[in-house]
């Protein structure tokens, strides 16, 4: 329900961008080194990581993402305070300057996959779609590695 409502809202907001044919920026986005950890069943949230590179000549804004694997997918930023307490919060829209790469990496950010619709099994992969403010969408296949994986190499 919630997911559908969000998609509709996104479609409404993005309609003017589509109408003016402003697609250019996100065409030049390259996503590399995507990976995720296997889940134990579906009751726990999952997490995915990747590097998003803007190979173009104008800034792009990553506004959100979605996957049929999870009811809600969000980019979360992890912050650790001076007492060593870590917490996470939605990262909001992420502007990527020309030539820059944003690392959604352990310790910094993660794609939080909430309300998993099926288990994330090691060796499989799942589709994720990145949404940009110009209306562009970048599909990314995300490999599922073991629970103890530390990076895209495992």
């Amino acid at each position, binding site marked *: 329900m919630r997911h559908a409502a969000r998609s509709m809202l996104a479609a409404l907001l993005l309609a003017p961008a589509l109408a003016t044919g402003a697609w250019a920026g996100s065409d030049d986005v390259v996503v590399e080194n995507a990976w995720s950890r296997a889940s134990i069943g579906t009751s726990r949230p999952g997490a995915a990581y990747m590097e998003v590179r803007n190979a173009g000549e104008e800034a792009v804004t990553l506004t959100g993402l979605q996957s049929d694997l999870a009811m809600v997918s969000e980019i979360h930023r992890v912050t650790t305070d001076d007492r060593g*307490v870590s917490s996470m919060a939605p990262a909001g829209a992420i502007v990527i300057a020309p030539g820059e790469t944003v690392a959604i990496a352990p310790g910094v950010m993660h794609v939080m996959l909430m309300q998993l619709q099926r288990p994330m099994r090691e060796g499989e992969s799942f589709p994720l779609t990145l949404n940009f403010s110009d209306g562009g969408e970048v599909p990314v296949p995300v490999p599922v590695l073991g629970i103890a994986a530390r990076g895209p190499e495992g």
Partner: protein
Amino acid sequence: MRRRSVLGLGGGIAALGLTLLAGWWQVDGPGASGRTDEARPLPLTEMDFALIDHEGQPVGPETLVGRASLVFFGFTFCPAVCPTTLADVSGWLADLGEDAARLNVVFVTVDPARDDVKAMAEYVGYFDPAIRGWTGPEEQIARAVEGFRATYERVTTDDSYTMNHTSSVFLFDAEGRFVSTVDYHEPREFAVPKIRRAMGLETKRAT
């Protein structure tokens, strides 16, 4: 005149300023890197809590005395921070090689409502076999957290809840004295030398 104002109202303001400065020093300033006495974990020998490990055995701080220990808090529904810590710890244990066999490694849940013995056993089973998972009654978890001068807090989400918690890895020597922490935002290559120091081993130069 000047002297008098310092002794009077001015003195009070100066004292307040010093207090604020001291507060800043400890919270945000250079003093933040060193733990103040009240933030320093107790020696394991002065802690008092009774938990159960992932094999159903009774455990407590006394279980850890006699060997150096690496202890951290978390919960198995944790999407990113805890699996990252468990995966990092598994990597450090691999780097330690044979020496890892002389280290206690414990993951204590701060979410005993969901992390029973069975859940802990399944979860730690995916990581280095040296990692023990501890759970137990909520009030005993709270006593353990208090002894480590750590914190945790339940945060409600749309359809469930998550836990904010101290993500530092605590290191103790074989006598149970607190040695240092490996903090979550710290470069991970500092970890193995710190662990070796807690174990009383010479620290090799990074290759």
